[in-house]
């Protein structure tokens, strides 16, 4: 009977919260816009691979007076015509390239040194110098990689040309004895959207509980309406449960919106079972609900609630592996990462969505989320009851 009443009271509080939410035009617009902006931003800010490079302004300097330098220039131009990767311009020397990079006119430069032909003729390797704009590390690295690749390829062909006397089939094998073939787990070429969409879904669910919940309670505290519920003969838990239900609904709607946007606008494909995706979203709710309640119990004003949430959310967002792979982080950050539930939510979501994994493949993630959620619920529920009875 008591449990039934508790559920009924929470359901009505949830009804009230959702009704208020549905009647706020601003809130509805934000509900739609937030995921859209999120996807567009992250999708376009991070370029996904070197193959995407196009029309990068690069200066080319030939300081070599011999035929090898000219030959290299011709080959490079020929290759560039096919790929359209670079916009080649001229420069007088290394200093000039430096000046042009400072001025922002070019993103990098290729220098053929003076002794290029001489070295090759003498049977040594010919060195090509690559300069990049290091103030933009991401672009700099990509330019370096792309140019190294181009020069590598050109070298291979040069070598084949030199050995052309022998059988053409075996020459490639002589120059490049090893080659790589990539076996995809799933079809197609995962884009950055594909990488980031599962993470954002987990993140939005997290945000709805971590910011939505403390905000919902502290707002009612500030305006005085919370007293109305507190003075009614209802279980204190009904209040928080009602709010959790409302926030969960909101978070799930937003998560599903992101999924739809990702699929319809950004061509993201789900390889796994969509029901498992929804289940992971619910588990994400479970894993964060305790933490959300805990923060709520500590904050008495809306202002402090927002501040605490921001401080906690940012590290979680970045350390949870939503935008960057965790493996790229330094060791101590990976350690922090490994205790954040968002890390596991993102990982599980990614495995299911991108790799088509099943329930059996994500047991570690599920276990961690459940345990984390239960531990924090055990801590936070008594704290919340105490906070309500100050």
């Amino acid at each position, binding site marked *: 009977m008591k449990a039934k009443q508790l559920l009924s009271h929470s359901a009505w*509080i949830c009804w009230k919260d959702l009704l208020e939410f549905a009647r706020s035009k601003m809130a509805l617009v934000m509900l739609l816009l937030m995921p859209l902006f999120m996807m567009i931003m992250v999708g376009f800010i991070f370029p996904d691979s070197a193959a995407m490079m196009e029309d990068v302004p690069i200066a080319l300097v030939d300081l070599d007076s011999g035929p090898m330098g000219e030959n290299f220039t011709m080959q490079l131009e020929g290759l560039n015509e096919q790929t359209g990767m670079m916009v080649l311009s001229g420069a007088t020397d290394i200093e000039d390239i430096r000046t042009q990079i400072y001025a922002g006119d070019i993103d990098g430069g290729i220098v053929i040194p003076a002794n290029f032909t001489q070295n090759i003729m003498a049977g040594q390797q010919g060195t090509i110098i690559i300069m990049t704009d290091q103030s933009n590390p991401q672009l700099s690295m990509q330019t370096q990689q792309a140019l190294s690749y181009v020069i590598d390829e050109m070298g291979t062909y040069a070598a084949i040309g030199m050995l052309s006397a022998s059988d053409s089939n075996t020459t490639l094998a002589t120059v490049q004895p090893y080659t790589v073939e990539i076996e995809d787990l799933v079809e197609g070429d995962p884009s950055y959207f594909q990488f980031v969409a599962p993470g954002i879904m987990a993140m939005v669910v997290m945000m709805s509980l971590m910011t939505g919940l403390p905000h919902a309670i502290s707002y009612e505290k500030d305006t005085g*309406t919370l007293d*109305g*519920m*507190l003075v009614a003969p209802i279980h204190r838990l009904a209040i928080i449960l009602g709010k959790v239900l409302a926030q969960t609904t909101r978070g799930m709607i937003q998560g599903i919106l992101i999924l739809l946007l990702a699929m319809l606008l950004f061509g993201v494909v789900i390889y796994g079972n969509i029901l498992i995706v929804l289940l992971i979203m619910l588990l994400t709710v479970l894993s964060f609900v305790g933490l959300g309640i805990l923060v709520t119990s500590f904050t008495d004003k809306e202002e402090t609630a927002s501040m605490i949430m921001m401080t906690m959310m940012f590290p979680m967002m970045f350390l949870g592996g939503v935008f960057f792979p965790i493996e790229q982080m330094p060791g101590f950050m990976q350690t922090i990462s490994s205790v954040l539930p968002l890390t596991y939510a993102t990982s599980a979501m990614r495995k299911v969505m991108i790799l088509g994994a099943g329930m059996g493949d994500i047991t570690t993630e599920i276990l961690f989320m459940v345990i984390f959620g239960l531990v924090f619920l055990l801590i936070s529920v008594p704290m919340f009851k105490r906070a309500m009875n100050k």
Partner: protein
Amino acid sequence: MTEEIAIQTNELTKKFGDLVAVDKVSFDVKKGEIFGFLGPNGAGKTTTIRMLCTLTRPTDGTATVADLDIKKDDHEVRGHIGLVSEKLIMYDRLTAYENLKLFAKLYNLSKDQMEKKIDELLKLVHMEKWKDKQIGTYSTGMKQRINVIRALLNEPEILFLDEPTLGLDPQSTAEIREFIRKLNTELNTTIILTTHMMVEADMLCDRLGIIDRGKIVALDTPENLKKMISGNDNLVTEMNIPNLTNTMVETLQACECVKTISRLDNTKIKVQANGDDAFDIILDTVRAGGGKITSVKNLEPTLEDVFLHITGREVRDQANVKQRAENRGPDGHSMGGGGNRRVR
């Protein structure tokens, strides 16, 4: 046979850190009476009410509400009370009906009970036509009407009203006061209300507790309280002295018979004094100081004078000082805007 008691407190105390908001307050409220707390903002009225409504735990002391202990049986207490707090307990984006429905559901009313009760209450405050409009579109007076009937959904034996007419226009104020009286006489609801308005306290309350700095400094019927300072040897007089100076006020204050003195404006003073020859002494003192008295008016004592008499301060001054302290202090419940309203 003792009179039936609705509320009994015993040295009820609430501290917020070092600040003692309510200091060992003991009083009884009889069933069926309208009991008022009068005092400036920050005096501890709201905190006392919040403790009795189980919204705040007392630091010390005990209290029973409807014969239930507010600490041990807090959950049960809630079923017997209604609260109209200083801040509106309503959601602007919900209609009046939806607001009432939510709280009816929290009080476990069945669907039929709920419909009946909501209709009945809406009729009582003449708001039937507005029931499907969002609260946000209401005027302050309309909001307060819904706010008050919201507290009546569970037919409470005891109704707490914290500054129920704060910020309302004169007409709404009159309506709400009338409504409170009606509730008391027709439904025999015990009513505890707080106010810093002397007139309101005087008009509505059967008994009054004057509360100042967390302590109840006087508790009686409004008539008896006023009698404290009226009578033969008590005098409240207002004088108009066009050439009034500070020295005159100071000399008057030095007189033994003068209890309190307040300057109403540049030329008017109000003097409270006792003693058979107080009036003569005052007139002589003013004249001796070169003062020219153009008019003298003897006043009936008001509750304001009672407050002044007991605490030696005016409600207004007290309110201002307290309010400033309160804005910094942890007790932010009574930061109403009406604190420095002059009441006579």
